[in-house]
């Protein structure tokens, strides 16, 4: 379970970009995160993958208050979170295989296990024939699948995706959402940041809506507005 209690975030001495944010993500839940540009989506995502520390409030992740964790423990905590970035952020000096293998190397998995897991996953995302190619030589869609494979290879408990369908046409976008649904059914908690209203309407999941740093939670279908518990 992930719980944000009275979270505030400001950069330097600037105004708060997130104000008194409260929500809970139950294990195996699926949420969309939406809001206009500059509403604080990226900041909220950064807090979720522990890339930033809140200026106030408390974050509890998988039963731990993150304030009480050492740097070493925080690193272990981050290994439980998979992130798919909008710009993929693949390392271009590594092959597709090595990019996907990266989280396993960070968690000191054996070379044998890395070889079998990565090959299997790349076959699953239909990139088995491209595993030794440099990501730069692949199409945008293929790069995105590598980014997704990298995010899920270590079986994260929480998967965050930032505008995953932003650069894709509708068909591939829906296919990708199908993949996320599949991962969610396997037990992964999902948070998908998106602007795509069609996608949000198509898939009935709760929405975390940010407006000027203030978070509201919208239920699917009947869109009940509520502040606080999800």
């Amino acid at each position, binding site marked *: 379970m992930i719980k944000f209690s009275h979270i505030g975030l400001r950069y330097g001495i600037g105004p708060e970009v997130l104000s008194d944010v409260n929500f809970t993500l139950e294990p195996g839940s699926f949420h969309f995160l939406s809001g206009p540009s500059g509403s604080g989506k990226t900041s909220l995502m950064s807090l979720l993958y522990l*890339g930033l520390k809140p200026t106030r409030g408390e974050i509890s992740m998988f039963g731990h208050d993150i304030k009480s964790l050492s740097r*070493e423990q925080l*690193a272990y905590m981050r290994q439980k979170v998979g992130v798919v970035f909008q710009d993929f952020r693949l*390392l271009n*000096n590594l092959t597709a295989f090595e990019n996907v293998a990266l989280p396993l190397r960070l968690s000191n998995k054996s070379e044998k296990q890395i070889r079998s897991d990565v090959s299997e996953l790349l076959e699953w995302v239909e990139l088995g024939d491209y595993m030794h190619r440099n990501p730069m030589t692949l199409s945008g869609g293929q790069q995105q699948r590598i980014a997704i494979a990298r995010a899920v290879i270590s079986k994260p408990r929480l998967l965050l995706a930032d505008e995953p369908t932003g650069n894709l046409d509708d068909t591939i976008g829906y296919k990708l959402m199908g993949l996320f649904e599949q991962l969610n059914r396997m037990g992964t908690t999902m948070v998908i940041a998106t602007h795509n209203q069609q996608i949000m309407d198509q898939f009935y999941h709760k929405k975390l809506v940010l407006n000027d740093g203030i978070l509201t939670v919208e239920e699917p279908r009947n869109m009940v507005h509520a502040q606080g518990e999800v």
Partner: protein
Amino acid sequence: MSLFQRITPKSYILPLHKRSGSVQFFTIIMLMTAMLVIIGAVQISLMNTVQKWKSLIEHQASIEIPSLDENGRAYSSDELNMMTQRVVALLENIDYTRDVQIESTEQIAKLIGPWLGNDNKVLDMNLPVLINFNIQTDDKSFIDQLTSRIKKLAPRARLQTHQKWLDKFLQLVRGIHGIGLLIVSVTLVATLFVISSTVRARMAIYKKELSLIHIMGAHDRFILRQFLIYLSYLTVPAAFLGLILAFVMMSIISALFLNADTAFIPHFGVNGGYLIKLLFIPLVICFMSIAIGSYTVINEMKKMP
């Protein structure tokens, strides 16, 4: 895959060696090591030569009894002989003086030969008397006392202990040493800054990649390992190439300019003793690189949440 990636372990994943700067870093480390090795060799050579000079000159003294009196009149051989015997007797009766020897006329002729010629005519001239002896103290009052006692026996005799100019020479050597140490210190500090700024620059260039692996759960020590692999794969060969470069340069200089086989000129030889002493310099550079690199990375990493 580049050669760098081929030879580095699999855990090296950040392309720190790519983009400009690595070749320059390699070259600077190599040249700084070469400079430090050359300065080190000069210092060692100078010390060795000073030791040789000291062992040859220290505690050695000589008395010269000129062949002419204060009015320019030549002493008769009897007069000279008498003064010499008295001085020798005095020296032999003092505890602090030993091994008293009167230089033969032939030996003195040989010494002044370069100025007056080496023919037999020199032997016909009135040559001064030279008494060499070993003096076991450098106490100034004793030397003053001895000088005045010798003057009473041979008024124009001059005592030369070599101590004065040896002291001045040692002072000069100490000065050169000090300058050498200053250059070494400045070079080491400059090397320290080069290593530190290279690491900082690499961290800034690869900020995106670093923050990516940090987000993915890389421990600080994993990121540190990236930099240590990068630094050691550049510093170790650069430092040892610098050592080789310095030896080549010293051998050339030694062969061209310092090949006189004498104890009085510093000799830059690449022998076992030198090698062991000078091997410490690239080792120190490598150690510095690892230590400063680690410190810089850990400090910079602390800025990440």
